């Protein structure tokens, strides 16, 4: 478990020694692309603890298989899944489903009990309001709506986002849902590495910067 991470830390010291010679730089440049092309898998994340006892440890939402719900009831959770997958759908690229965004949101909202219990209230009240709006508009709870009906309702709730004069009672919940979905998706491996294809936080022996003459002249 910690072996790989310590290996990486040794690698950092090794770079220090090697990068001071031309031969060393040549060696590193041929070795680096193979070893660091992919971001570290989750198993590498555990390991060294600092002087306060902190150490990187992934969320249970990312490690438990299957994930055990901690906050939402199963029917509430199903709605959260649907909502997050509307914000960032699976299309030709992975989305909230592959990134297990709903699991992570369940875990974070559960964890809010200690310092920010109002977050839990916001979610429960928001889901109630969603179902109330859904019943008013279509006569059914949200999870019984068709796909197009769900799209229509969520779009209505989002109206103030592009029309500052508009108001909608569902807008605060829409903002909460969207912001937490974005945060959960783009801090996940699926979102950051597979979708955005973030290439950084790695080891390079040189930084070429821009290589496009049309940007420079």
């Amino acid at each position, binding site marked *: 478990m910690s072996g790989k991470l310590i290996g990486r830390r040794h690698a*950092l010291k090794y770079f220090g020694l090697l990068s*001071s010679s031309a031969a060393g730089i040549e060696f590193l440049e041929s070795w680096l692309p193979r070893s660091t092309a992919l971001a570290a898998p989750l198993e590498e994340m555990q390991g060294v603890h600092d002087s306060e006892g902190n150490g*990187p440890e992934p969320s249970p939402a990312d490690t438990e298989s299957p994930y055990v719900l901690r906050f939402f009831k199963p029917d509430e959770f199903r709605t959260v899944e649907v909502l997050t997958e*509307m914000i960032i759908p699976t299309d030709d690229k992975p989305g909230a489903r592959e990134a297990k965004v709903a699991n992570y949101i369940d875990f974070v909202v559960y964890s*809010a009990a200690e310092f920010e219990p109002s977050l839990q209230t916001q979610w429960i009240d928001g889901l109630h309001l969603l179902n109330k709006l859904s019943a008013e508009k279509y006569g059914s709870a949200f999870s019984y709506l068709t796909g197009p009906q769900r799209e229509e309702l969520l779009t209505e709730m989002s109206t103030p986002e592009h029309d500052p004069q508009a108001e909608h009672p569902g807008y605060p919940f829409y903002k909460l849902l969207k912001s937490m979905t974005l945060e959960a998706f783009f801090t996940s491996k699926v979102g950051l590495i597979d979708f955005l294809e973030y290439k*950084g936080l790695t*080891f390079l022996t040189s930084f070429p910067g821009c290589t496009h003459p049309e940007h420079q002249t």
Partner: protein
Amino acid sequence: MGSQPVYDVIVVGSGAAGGIACHVLATQGLKVLCLEAGRRIESAKDFHTHTFPYGWTYRGNGKPGEYGKLPQGMEWKIKEWTDHLYTIPDEDPYALAPGAKFTWTRMRVLGGRTNCWGRGCDRFGPLDFKAKSLQDGWGEDWPITYDDVAPYYDKVEQFIGVAGDSEGVYNTPAGQHLLPPFNPRCGEWLIKKGAEKLGIKVRPKPLAVLSRPYHGRPACHYCGGCNWGCEVAARYGSVDSVFPHLEGRPNFTLRTNAAVHTVLMDRETGKARGVTYIDSENKQEYEAYGKAIVLAASMVESIRILFNSRNREYPNGLANSSGTLGRYLMEHVAFNDIQGFFPQLAGRPSTNDDGPGESCLYIPRYNYGHKDTKKYLRGWRFDFYTGCGMGPGPGAELPGFGSAYKKKIKELYPAAFSIGGYGEGLAFDWNYVEIDPDGLRDRLGIPQVRFHTFAEYPHAFAIRDEMYAQMEEIMKAAGAEIFPYKKVAPYPLGSVTHEAGGARMGDDPKTSVLDKWNRCHDVRNIIVADAACFVTHPEKQITHTIMALAWRACDHLAEEFRRGNV
């Protein structure tokens, strides 16, 4: 006193100023005790530089609400990568006068904020040290000139390793022996072209980051994780570059978990004779003795120590016969960045834009001789950040959701830019800090400070408006799309971690605390070596000047020891 040693110098603090003070004094053979309030840390254990967000239980953000209410400018600092390094404000509160705001960023560990600093190393220029007599008649001059400090900028650059180029611009001189500058990113080139169309110069940003191996430290490997600590010391930090070389020398002692409380005075000689400090582990108070004291605890803490040392002779604070201790606090005029994207870069594959973790280029001040001095004084600099980062980028700011929104995020992700600036902040006597009159104490029982600081004054609003307008013009000339933004009030003092002043240098003991060698006018064997000594706060970053002044003050102190004057 018994068998306790009497050191030549007690250095309080181990950060930017303290690290340099220890290096200069101990390598010249003086017997030095460094007292650091925080605990010892090690880069190999305490920096989680290469941990991805999904390596943390809460993706780096902590539990909801875990860090409490964070003042402006601290939200991005305290993360799971760094929450064991920073002091969480709610856990160790400080006081604010009614309506006042101050963002006090504390990193109470060995090395202080050099563990996570921004690494920008531009030099002040001749007009900055004499802004009153050479620019506009406002405020005060420093009692020193650029030429007095220049050799020390050289020494600092050679010691810490700074990358950049040697051309410089008017009033922003450059070092002549820098490591090679870094290669700019695509977006940085586009901004450079746009600015240059308007006649504005864009220069390599001098950075305390190694572009080549240097003095046994490896070159930067471009991971971009600098704000979480540099595991390989490719960016300067005293924890790796100073203390390992000094510990083990017979003339150097480092004591951590030692929070200095007061300076001890000898009533007969009127000189300082040592300090008291509280061991943060057993909460007991101890004394240490020295022939000279260098306060380098950071601006606020050094001022706090002097106030807490008040006695019969100095009822308003030790060395405060001028009444200016704690006053004339300054900070950059700062506010929100402008953001958007470059259409020319949209839709292209992701690139690794981490580079040296900071921008490779920047825009130094260019508005010399401007005619709007009734509205604002002096000038600003701009910094900008471009390309692929660790977040979704500008597309996430757009309204909407679903597949089209998601595709837009990916399309604009490689095209991101943000541009922001720092304006010169002015010094007023009504911006001050004192010991809290309501008796607030910190976790060790040491009387805590209360800030009376306000960042919203006419110059600040006016220079902000000029800066917003100029940034828009530059980005339009660069061909960028700018997102709509709200103008915000200038950020509170301390928000960009560049607080300075409060024990200013000057030739007149009636209007300053320190002389031109950073010695207290009233007590000449107490030196204040950190940003408290500043007289003005130009648009430049301040750490380089902190280190150069600390080096100069300690060089002079060492010479005084050699002459038997201490």
